[in-house]
């Protein structure tokens, strides 16, 4: 796993120079996703709130990157922008070195489908679908045959330890089981990055540990990078690389 910290900002940097330290310490072929000078401002009533302020970040293949910070620090906004759920006001997101700013909504949707997985704090499973169907859903957006989809969904559901729960609707699953289904759904399309926004916030500590262990295993299994936003120091302690965020700004590795 990379120990390169790629988003620490050099205080001597000037405009137009993001002042990245050690950008190429590791081979650039390892970099999957890169955010350069990302800024995002929201309007809250009559007040403009800066959720991200000139943030640089890079994600390498198979790594676990922790975005740590208190509520309102910009973790979710950064995940949203990097995960192509939102657009930055300024700055650029590069996927495999290619800017994504020119993509239309359909292309962004296809990129999310093929390259990214998402895990949400509240699980966000589709209530009318069973556990198996929830896992299968992202594959229904691809050209995979029904048989192949079903087989892979079953395998993935088994991998997260939910054998026997295939036909159960989410409302009959425990919180930990739901998050396992969400994890299975996130990795089933073999993405390169899984974005997890406070994935353990709604779980008790024991269940949370189980989910974090599972994430680590899946990361190893699928060589998929995990970007985890958390304000929980216990979760952050699992990351080899941590980006601290405060008031929309990224700070050096702790």
């Amino acid at each position: 796993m990379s120990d390169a910290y790629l988003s620490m900002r050099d205080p001597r940097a000037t405009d137009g120079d993001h002042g990245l330290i050690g950008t190429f310490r590791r081979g650039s072929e390892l970099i999957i996703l890169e955010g350069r000078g990302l800024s995002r401002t929201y309007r809250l009533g009559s007040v403009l709130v800066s959720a991200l302020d000139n943030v640089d970040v890079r994600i390498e293949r198979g790594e676990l990157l922790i975005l740590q910070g208190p509520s309102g620090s910009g973790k979710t906004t950064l995940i949203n922008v990097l995960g192509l759920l939102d657009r930055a006001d300024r700055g650029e997101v590069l996927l495999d070195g290619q800017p994504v700013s020119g993509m239309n909504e359909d292309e962004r949707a296809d990129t999310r489908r093929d390259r990214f997985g998402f895990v949400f704090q509240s699980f966000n499973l589709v209530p009318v679908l069973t556990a198996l169907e929830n896992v299968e859903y992202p594959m229904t957006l691809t050209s995979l045959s029904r048989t192949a989809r079903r087989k892979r969904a079953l395998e993935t559901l088994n991998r997260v330890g939910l054998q026997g729960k295939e036909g159960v609707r989410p409302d009959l699953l425990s919180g930990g089981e739901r998050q396992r289904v969400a994890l299975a759904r996130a990795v089933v399309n073999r993405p390169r990055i899984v974005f997890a926004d406070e994935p353990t916030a709604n779980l008790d500590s024991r269940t949370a540990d189980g989910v974090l262990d599972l994430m680590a295993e899946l990361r190893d299994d699928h060589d998929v990078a995990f970007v985890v936003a958390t304000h929980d120091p216990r979760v952050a302690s699992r990351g080899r690389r941590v980006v601290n965020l405060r008031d929309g700004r990224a700070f050096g590795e702790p």
Partner: protein
Amino acid sequence: MNIWLLALRNLLRNRRRSLLAGAVVMVGFASFALAGGFMAQSLEGLRDGTIRSGLGHLQFADPRGYEPGADTTLEHGLTDAAEIERILRADPAVLEVLPRIDFVGLVTSGDRSVPFLGTGLDPAPEARSMDLADTLGAGRWLQDREERGVVLGAGLAAALTVEVGDTVTLLATTTDGVLNAVDASVVAVAAIPIKELDDRYLATSLGLAANLLTAGDRVSRFVVVLHDVGDDRPALERLLRALDGHGFEITGKTWEELALFYRQVRMLYMGIFGFMGAVLVVVVLLATANVMLMAATERTREIGTLRALGTRPGRIRKMFVAEGVLLAAAACVAGALASLAVRTLLNHSGIVLPPPPGVTHGVPLHIKLYGVTYLAGGMTMTLTMMLAAYLPARRASRMSIVEALAHV
């Protein structure tokens, strides 16, 4: 996950709401089907009444016979009527051929003289094919082609103060322009539904009319009754070709071309039905769009999730439209069953409606099973539901994913 199965599950998610929306569509469909069936039945009744009032399915006359301004009686009449009748009868689609002589004159009784609009006709086939013989208020229908009897409109009989059995004198100008008169006995008084016609109506046998007018083997026109009204256009073309092949220069018209009143009533009905249909569509659209909007709003976060997972906005819209189509299909089937049940109930209720225009007696309520309205109703309701589902789906699919995911 098949988009239709997902749509079905979403519909079943909130059954009460789906039932409510479905009930609106069902009532809309049933209303559409019943109103359409009633309209079709009314128009069919009016059509048959128009045809049986004397118009027939087809009419043949000299091309100038349809134009006003003849100088003398039967100036544009058809000569060699027997041969024309033979040609017309030879067609297998033809049920009856009714020769008619139209003429005007004065009818006199005692010191009263009243102008009349007369028709000379062949009584037996007229009685079989037309309604006039069934609408006599007093007396009997003419019995043979040469009978010296007349049937008078009730208004005309009243103006003359004559009754059945009295004798009247008919005065008219012959084909040579000479005034001629014949005596005839009043065999019946008929109640003609149109008052202006009732005050002038006179029917007599073809023989008496020919005798009065010295018409010989000449008639004004031929009225043709077909086995099936749907054959009118091809039969007309076929008969005109046959007549032309025998050297007759004759033109023909279908009942619909001649029935101005029917066409006006049909236009009126179509306008009323179209307006009612538009109101139904608006009501169904407003009611169901609100329900679909609620469904879309409740599922905002779910839509955000699906989009985050890579679902294109277009697929989100399709999912909602599929729900609309499924709901409309189920509701239309239920509406069809409901309308069939209501139709059966009404058709056996014995309700009698007031007489329609041109008819003297009330008609029993009968709602026709008119497939076109079921098809049109189904399509209209489905399109309405698709629109009702599309509008909120469009809004939902365009919403920012971040806002959708944050929706509570």
